[in-house]
């Protein structure tokens, strides 16, 4: 009975200390333009070189330093070919029936070290990224080499013109070049320097980079877009603990928070500080089930279908996703996505119908495959040891047990998660996949193509591979959409990486933060932040 007394006393002491030592409330008002925005990214970035990394954390923290040839308009919520705006390229033109993509570059651009930007920088960057034999630099890690496989040569006929010559038409190339993963690097700066430094042409210049602690930028006074950026600087503070991130936002130490937050986190933040604004948007990150095609009995289509049917999607939405997801196939569903299956078809996907009926069907299929109550299917459900993964994987275990499967959960440390998936050292796994751009080329080749290193389920279909190549070269958008939908239907029927749902993203910011743009169909292409300003 007396135990609460010392706790209360201790807390009172802490509060008193806090009150005595806390800085006073009177902080100077910043002007409407200017000011430094403080935010917390998803995590520390391993480097400031987007071409060598595969995490949104790098895109968030490096994008203010760089520019692309073209970029997605931050103010347009849904990215598409129609929302691409010029950056380093003033204009561009497809020629020779989408075999040549010509960029005409700006002539008033300088790198942060004062050197002029020219077409040689573009050629240097994309020769390096596509792994051209005569490239002047070589990336140690080249995650998006696949994106540029159709590029045969890059030519720089003069200082301000660049031509991408393609082996075959590929309309998606322009979309890939607009991604946050496609900035232009300076040819005169050694690649190794981007591990910890950044010389770009972007709206902000790197002021300080303390690896694992903070990345700080100041306004680039020579930025080629007149009047931008509005901010005097941006500070990315690495805060690992989610509760601390929320507290930092509520206390006003952060202007914006939310990277990697779920709905509950966002609502908790607002409950503690009602003036905060929550931004909810779709995202191109999906929860997917990896069923190992190379391991028995999961190579049996009946077992795969039973697993797919057992996972009641509506329960997933209510449970682990807390109402914050949309249903779809392999491509982000409409209206946020450009290439998803029609809603009527999504409603008929496995796991979407009456759960009792679907679970009964799952039991029947398992019985046909030889798994009964006397001889139950035993499986390990692997997942990454992060809360956002474990919550859904735990729910999966429960759902599978409801159809008589004896499932156990295996949490895998982040450091060995991808190696284990790449080597197919699992039976069934719960995975999260984010796609750089909402485009079939980026999504399908990476995750479903035979032999792709991110095809973690080991799925392989020659027919699908052919259709993928066909859609990639189809210039008519309507025809391409029809092809993409056909691929998606087949993928769902094959149980190739069943999609549980597409999660929503949350950002929470104070009302004084203006123009903090969020895109509905990608989290990767909106981090330049040159239009953000502070109304305080």
């Amino acid at each position, binding site marked *: 009975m007396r135990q609460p007394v010392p706790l209360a006393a201790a807390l009172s002491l802490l509060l008193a200390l806090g009150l005595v030592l806390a800085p006073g409330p009177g902080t100077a008002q910043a002007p409407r333009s200017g000011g430094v925005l403080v935010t917390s990214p998803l995590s520390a970035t391993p480097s400031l070189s987007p071409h060598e990394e595969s995490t949104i954390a790098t895109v968030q923290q490096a994008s203010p330093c760089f520019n692309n040839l073209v970029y997605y308009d931050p103010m347009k919520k849904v990215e598409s070919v129609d929302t691409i705006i010029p950056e380093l390229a003033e204009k561009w033109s497809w020629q020779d029936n989408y075999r040549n993509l010509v960029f005409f570059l700006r002539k008033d651009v300088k790198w942060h070290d004062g050197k002029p930007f020219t077409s040689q920088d573009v050629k240097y960057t994309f020769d390096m990224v596509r792994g051209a034999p005569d490239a002047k630099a070589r990336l140690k890690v080249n995650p998006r080499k696949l994106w540029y496989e159709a590029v045969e040569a890059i030519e720089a006929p003069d200082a301000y013109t660049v031509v991408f010559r393609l082996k075959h038409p590929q309309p998606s190339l322009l979309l890939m070049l607009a991604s946050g993963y496609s900035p232009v690097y300076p040819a005169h700066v050694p690649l190794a320097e981007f591990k*910890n430094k950044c010389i770009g042409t972007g709206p902000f210049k790197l002021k300080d980079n303390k*690896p694992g602690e903070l990345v700080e930028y100041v306004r680039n006074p020579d930025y080629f877009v007149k009047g931008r950026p509005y901010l005097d600087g941006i500070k990315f*503070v690495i805060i690992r603990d989610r509760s601390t991130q929320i507290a930092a936002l509520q206390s006003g130490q952060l202007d914006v928070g939310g990277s990697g937050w779920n709905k509950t986190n966002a609502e908790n933040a607002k409950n503690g500080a009602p003036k905060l604004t929550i931004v909810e948007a779709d995202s191109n990150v999906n929860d997917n089930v990896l069923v190992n095609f190379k391991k028995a009995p999961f190579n049996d289509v009946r077992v795969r279908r039973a697993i797919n049917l057992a996972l009641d999607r509506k329960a997933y939405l209510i449970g682990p996703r807390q109402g914050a997801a949309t249903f779809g196939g392999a491509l982000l569903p409409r209206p946020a996505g450009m290439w998803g299956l029609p809603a009527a078809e999504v409603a008929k996907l496995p796991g979407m119908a009456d759960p009792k009926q679907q679970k009964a069907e799952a039991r029947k299929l398992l019985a046909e495959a030889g798994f009964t109550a006397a001889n139950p299917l035993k499986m390990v459900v692997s997942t990454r040891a992060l809360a956002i993964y474990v919550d859904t994987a735990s729910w999966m275990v429960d759902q599978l047990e409801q159809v008589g499967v004896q499932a156990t959960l295996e949490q895998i440390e*982040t450091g060995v998660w991808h*190696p284990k998936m790449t080597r197919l050292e699992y039976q069934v796994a719960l995975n999260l996949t984010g796609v750089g751009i909402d485009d079939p080329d980026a999504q399908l080749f990476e995750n479903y193509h035979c032999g792709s290193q991110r095809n973690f389920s080991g799925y392989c279909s020659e027919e699908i591979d052919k259709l993928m190549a066909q859609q990639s070269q189809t210039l008519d958008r309507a025809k391409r959409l029809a092809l993409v939908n056909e691929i998606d239907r087949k993928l769902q029927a094959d149980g190739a990486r069943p999609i549980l749902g597409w999660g929503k993203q949350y950002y929470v910011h104070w009302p004084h933060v203006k123009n903090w743009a969020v895109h509905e169909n990608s989290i990767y292409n909106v981090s330049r932040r040159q239009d953000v300003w502070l109304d305080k």
Partner: protein
Amino acid sequence: MRTYVAKRLAIAGVTLLGMSLLLFVLMRLAPGNITDIIFESAGYVDEADRHRLEAELGIDKPLVVQYGRWLGDLVRGELGKSYRYDLPAWEVIKPRLPVTLELAVLAMGFSVLLGVPFGVISAVRRGRPLDYALRVVSLAGLSMPAFWLAMVIILTLVRSVGWIPSMTYVSPFDDLRANLVQFLLPALAVGYRSSALIMRITRSTMLEVLREDYIRTAWAKGQREALVVWRHALKNASLPVVTLIGIEFAFLIGGLVVTETVFNLPGVARYLVDAIQFRDYPIVQNLAMLIAVVVVLANLAVDVLYTWLDPRIKYGSA
């Protein structure tokens, strides 16, 4: 005494050598290495590139060679390069050391400043309300994990006053007041548990000492309570307390990992966990060795302190 210290240093050397071997083996037993993590998380693995990077980092060599190289580098004072950040390991570790050191020293300071006096008061006022109150405080300290207390502090502060300590590190050389504001609460969160332990040990040893004949004699001679308790009794009761402080200082690092994370302090404890996740061998090995050295030296310092506290202890003749 000199012979004793020399002997202890020699034993410490052997201990550290064993520690280095253990560390090295444990790190290699963990599945995967930095190249696995870098390449496979990128989703694109060019085997030639991977082998090139392994050669560049020296992790393609036989384990014996790798271990020998590391020891040789340690002897020369070279700590190698962080695989993850491509920076000299010392450059990565150096700015983080003062953060952890300050937190550890402040936490120990709290522990001793709260634990010893409260333990003495509790013993002297045995069976009275103050004794019961202090015992409850100490029991609460032992029951509350540092990470939970840290979280409660943060949440209580933000909910009640809308303020929490700075999330970016403030150096004491830049702004001492702001630095202390930033460190006091985390130090209290870490130090509370230790202070509770110290309080209990101090109380029990003081109770024993207060029953000794020489204390009774001092009371009989009419000496003042302060003199009897703080000078005669406490000095003789302090041997186990000093031992405990030494051990606690060594174990403090475990509590610091979480506290540094919750209060977002860029210290070595938190960084060590990151480095383990990324298999950043030079950082993990050298940091862990640094911690081992601190533990060994803390224990040695405690032993040396014994001779000052109790002149009857003669290490040289043992």
